[in-house]
């Protein structure tokens, strides 16, 4: 249980960092509650990465000291320079009760599913937890982790968050990766409800959250200890902030969006692709809407975290001795591959595990197609379409067996988009034109 102190410290840090980005007169919204865990844990992962890099080994005491120091500085800054902020959830006590009930049921379901698989699924233990396990045990030899590559390389946010819990516990407690899965599953549902609440009535927001939680693949994947749920959470967060930025551009909004885009990129390779698309689309839209002065803080916020992602990726590239993965552009022209992908995606997206999400999303996309062109939300539709098309090209170009690749990665690549798809659908249907 002592490991939960780590999460508490990160959340407090996230709260104070978020307050720094709020305008002096702005108050906390429902979405902010669910933004805080991701922001705080993401910053903790950054701290651990830089300690590993500059100290040369995992130093739990130093990591805890740095966390406490930053927390104290943020506390003093917030109480000295920022006015007291109030919450403006604008929710009736009945709605708050419904929200708590939804989150409690999701937490219960997630806990039950997580405890069925205490080691997580295959990549949970063999890749993500293995990395944390290796970094925890290897001392100053931690860079050797990348010397022998049998799996695709990814940025390290999830292993670093696990390490943060283990630093507080002092040992490799099994409950930490399990708890991280549950926290991000519940936070994703909460974030979706909070984000939708900004644009539609609480009724539609709650239905959207329940629909996400009801998708079998979402709950199962969320508790499998993969980084997919962390990436899904951060992609939703970045998407919502990008829409918010386009609707009401401000320096603080742009910097916070940039920071969250940077954190999103530090989760997985898939999320780096998502961030590149989102960043390009938002810069283009800001430029077109004569709000180009906000591009600079957006990029600056993104670069602040992006530096660590570049360092992580270059570290892997420089240290890796063998790379069994490759791409061949000739594969893109092979129509057999496209036929196989078409057949596979049709079967997969209409299966029970997706809970009817994709047929419903396609129907909404067609019926509401005129709205996408006119409104800010169109940026999300463009993002979803570009991401899906890009991944089809990546699958076609991979030198690995396509059938195997589709089987292990197709659903997972689209899983990251599920919360954004639901957000877009419910915004479109629930909001007034």
């Amino acid at each position: 249980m002592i490991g939960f102190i780590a999460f508490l410290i990160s959340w407090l840090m996230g709260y104070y960092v978020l307050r720094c980005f709020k305008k002096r007169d702005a108050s906390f919204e429902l979405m902010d509650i669910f933004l805080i865990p991701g922001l705080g844990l993401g910053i903790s992962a950054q701290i651990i990465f830089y300690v590993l890099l500059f100290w040369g080994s995992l130093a739990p005491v130093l990591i805890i000291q740095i966390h406490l120091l930053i927390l104290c500085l943020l506390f003093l800054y917030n109480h000295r320079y920022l006015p007291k902020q109030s919450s403006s959830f604008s929710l009736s006590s009945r709605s708050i009760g419904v929200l708590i009930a939804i989150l409690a049921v999701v937490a219960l379901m997630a806990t039950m599913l997580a405890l069925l698989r205490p080691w997580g699924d295959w990549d949970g233990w063999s890749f993500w937890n293995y990395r944390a396990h290796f970094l925890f045990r290897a001392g100053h030899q931690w860079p050797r982790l990348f010397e022998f590559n049998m799996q695709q390389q990814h940025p390290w946010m999830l292993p670093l968050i696990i390490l943060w819990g283990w630093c507080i516990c002092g040992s490799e407690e099994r409950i930490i990766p399990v708890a991280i899965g549950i926290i991000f599953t519940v936070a994703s549902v909460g974030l979706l409800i909070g984000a939708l609440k900004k644009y539609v009535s609480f009724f539609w927001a709650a239905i959207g959250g329940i629909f996400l939680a009801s998708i079998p693949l979402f709950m199962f994947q969320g508790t499998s200890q993969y980084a997919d749920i962390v990436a899904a959470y951060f992609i939703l967060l970045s998407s919502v902030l990008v829409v918010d930025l386009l609707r009401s551009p401000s320096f603080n909004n742009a910097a916070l969006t940039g920071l969250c885009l940077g954190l999103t990129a530090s989760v997985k390779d898939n999320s780096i692709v998502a961030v590149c698309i989102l960043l390009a689309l938002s810069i283009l839209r800001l430029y077109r809407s004569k709000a180009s002065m906000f591009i600079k803080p957006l990029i600056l916020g993104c670069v602040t975290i992006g530096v660590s992602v570049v360092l992580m990726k270059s570290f892997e590239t420089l240290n890796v001795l063998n790379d069994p993965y490759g791409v061949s552009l000739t594969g893109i022209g092979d129509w057999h591959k496209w036929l196989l992908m078409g057949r596979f995606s049709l079967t997969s997206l209409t299966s029970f595990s997706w809970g009817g999400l994709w047929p419903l999303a396609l129907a909404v996309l067609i019926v509401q197609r005129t709205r996408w062109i006119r409104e800010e939300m169109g940026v999300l539709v463009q993002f979803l379409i570009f991401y899906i098309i890009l991944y089809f090209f990546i699958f076609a170009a991979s030198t690995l067996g396509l059938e195997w690749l589709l089987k292990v990665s197709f659903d997972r690549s689209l899983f990251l988009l599920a919360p954004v798809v639901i957000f877009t659908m419910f915004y479109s249907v629930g909001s007034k034109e």
Partner: protein
Amino acid sequence: MFSNMCASRQPMLRSIFLFFVLFFISFNFIIQLPLLINSRHVLKAHQVQPIGRRFIPLIPFLKQVSWAGYATCLNSSGPLTDVAIMGPYQKAQYALAPTILDYFHPFDYHYLVYQCPGRMAPSQFQGKLSSYVIVKTFRGVTLLSRKKEPS
């Protein structure tokens, strides 16, 4: 014209959308029910076996070892995607971390972890490596060592 038609029919579209969403929510919860009912039998802490349990007896011998070879008696044309090969290999990696096990060049190192579910004696490896057995477990895992340092 299409957009005007949609705008005027927005309440109806909303009702249809709500109907389908509620239908899918109910259906999704019903199909997940058996899994949730089964999860009553969650494993207790003492029932959870550590990952790579069969490789744990090798830990004391590989404590200060950076690299070791890994070999198995199973063959496959695509070992990277073969669960029967990658499963035990990755479990060994996990259990023996931070020792890195090289699957592609197993005979280049002083130590070799040999895993064979059928408990076959690795005599062919012993001859090839000029090695001796350090430890052999009843679960089909053998740790071999060269008699001399590789040149």
